[in-house]
């Protein structure tokens, strides 16, 4: 009897393979691969190194912010302010450098701005009990407005003495011809994945999303962690803003408009659950990739760009539909 009990306890319910097949992320990866294969045969322009370079680089800005958003969404929150925070961080960087300061000072000011906004969001949400949707909706408006005030709504395209450094930071390709933003994304994705899987902090984030009350009762520092995730989200927007500024070589107050929706779409397509408790770094990247491949392919296939929204929206619904179908089966 004791032996069989021990055997039962030691048994694993799922093999690695069955877990992979059961994950939404896996099927999105398959969709991305199939779409790429189809496009390689259907068009001449897709599988060119120039186009692939473009796609991978375009993915990165949404992907980096989606990594930060993943933390927030796992706790069951939402951050609608990322697009505006990206804009404000870019503007702070641009104005600081334009005023003659070095790139280091510019980046520091930009990151500090992002973190301050994240902390503000987080404190209102965690300590004063504001709903995340409302706080970050307010910040969406505030941050972009501040960017307009700071720049007087002009375009900044001269970045002082370190102008070239900034452009090569965002637009260069320092390693094996891979665009720099792609390298940053890979590094940030690895860090995110590590934090979520291997640290106490990551474990607590999942616990908060699963059952916040339980997390509180078991001694998880729920409030501090909530502030931290909104700071991480804002930080990721700040980092994306710095890189995008370097890549574009100019900052307008329109940068990042509507980005929050793309970012949330990417995380949801990648398997994160807006109700909290579920999400991965890899999923965020794959979700962002699928959106970009759809956009790119519509252009290459000569389909009117106005259809973009339909296809991306369809992808969101389809991804979540798969998840629903699996849940129905499980509950039967």
């Amino acid at each position, binding site marked *: 009897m004791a032996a069989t009990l021990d055997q039962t*306890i*030691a048994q694993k*319910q799922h093999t690695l393979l069955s877990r992979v097949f059961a994950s939404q992320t896996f099927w999105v990866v398959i969709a991305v691969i199939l779409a790429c294969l189809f496009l390689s045969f259907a068009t001449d322009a897709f599988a060119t190194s120039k186009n692939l370079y473009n796609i991978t680089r375009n993915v990165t800005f949404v992907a980096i912010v989606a990594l930060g958003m993943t933390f927030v969404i796992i706790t069951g929150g939402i951050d609608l302010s990322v697009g505006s925070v990206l804009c404000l961080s870019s503007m702070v960087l641009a104005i600081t450098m334009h005023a003659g300061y070095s790139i280091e000072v510019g980046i520091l000011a930009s990151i500090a701005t992002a973190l301050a906004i994240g902390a503000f969001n987080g404190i209102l949400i965690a300590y004063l009990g504001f709903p995340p949707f409302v706080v970050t909706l307010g910040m969406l408006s505030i941050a972009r407005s501040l960017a307009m005030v700071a720049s007087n709504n002009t375009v900044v395209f001269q970045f002082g003495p370190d102008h070239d450094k900034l452009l090569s930071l965002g637009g260069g390709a320092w390693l094996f011809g891979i665009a720099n933003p792609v390298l940053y994304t890979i590094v940030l994705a690895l860090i995110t994945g590590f934090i979520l*899987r*291997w640290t*106490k902090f990551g474990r607590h984030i*999942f616990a908060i999303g699963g059952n916040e*009350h339980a997390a509180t009762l*078991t001694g*998880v520092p729920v409030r501090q962690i909530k502030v931290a995730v909104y700071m991480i989200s804002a930080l990721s927007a700040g980092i994306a803003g710095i890189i995008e500024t370097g890549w574009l070589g100019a900052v307008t107050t329109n940068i990042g408009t509507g980005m929050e929706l793309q970012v949330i779409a990417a995380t949801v397509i990648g398997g994160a659950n807006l109700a909290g408790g579920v999400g991965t770094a890899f999923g965020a990247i794959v979700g962002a990739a699928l959106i970009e491949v759809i956009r790119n392919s519509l252009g290459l296939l000569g389909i009117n760009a106005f259809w973009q929204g339909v296809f991306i929206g369809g992808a969101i619904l389809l991804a979540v539909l798969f998840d629903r179908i699996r849940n129905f089966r499980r509950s039967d």
Partner: protein
Amino acid sequence: MAVLELTNISKHFGAIQAVNDVSLSIEPGQVVGLMGDNGAGKSTLVKMIAGNFRPSHGAMQMDGKELILHKPVEARQHGIEIVHQDLALCNNLTAAANVYLGRELRKGVGPFRILDYAAMYKRAGQIFAELKSETRPRDLVKQMSGGQRQAVAIARTMLSQAKIVLMDEPTAAISVRQVAEVLNLIRHLRDQGIAVVLISHRMPDVFTVADRVIVMRRGRKVADKTIALSSPEEVTGLITGAIEQV
């Protein structure tokens, strides 16, 4: 010697006297059923032992030493563990992750410390085996039966050297077969010398597993006797007030 001793404990919230001059002592390895109608003061009493509230009057002693608790974490440090009524489990995490929630094992040096999955799975598995529960450490809690979920919540109390476990209505919302499982879990705790305070409305559970029954009514302790010397009829009378005091 008593593991926990309460002397003339009272608690009032403004004009409301929730607990009034209650004294009791709990021995190691003893299962005490704490019964009473809604509003009788049993939750308030338990919350004082758990460190959620501070008593307005009276003193608590643990192993003969004065016990003053400011927050729940301190109660846990003293070896007082609570199984909450809603179990406080995260459905999206594994059994082992839930057992170790808030006190995860880590390995590594200095700031570079990572979660020690292997050790947590192993120890959680050992605890489930001790509890004779067929619960797999790697399974997600959302796929578990009510009895297994109870086992996970109870396993938490066995991580550290608990001296006393407070269980709030552990059998309130589960099936008959699972009730038997939970009562077995309580016996396993007792066999390890842990004192268990079982708060319950269910007369059969208390009379099956408890050594002693304490009945509260309107903030006062109206009975405290060995289970063999009492009867469900008497306890019902005490709870409702048909019997004034014994």
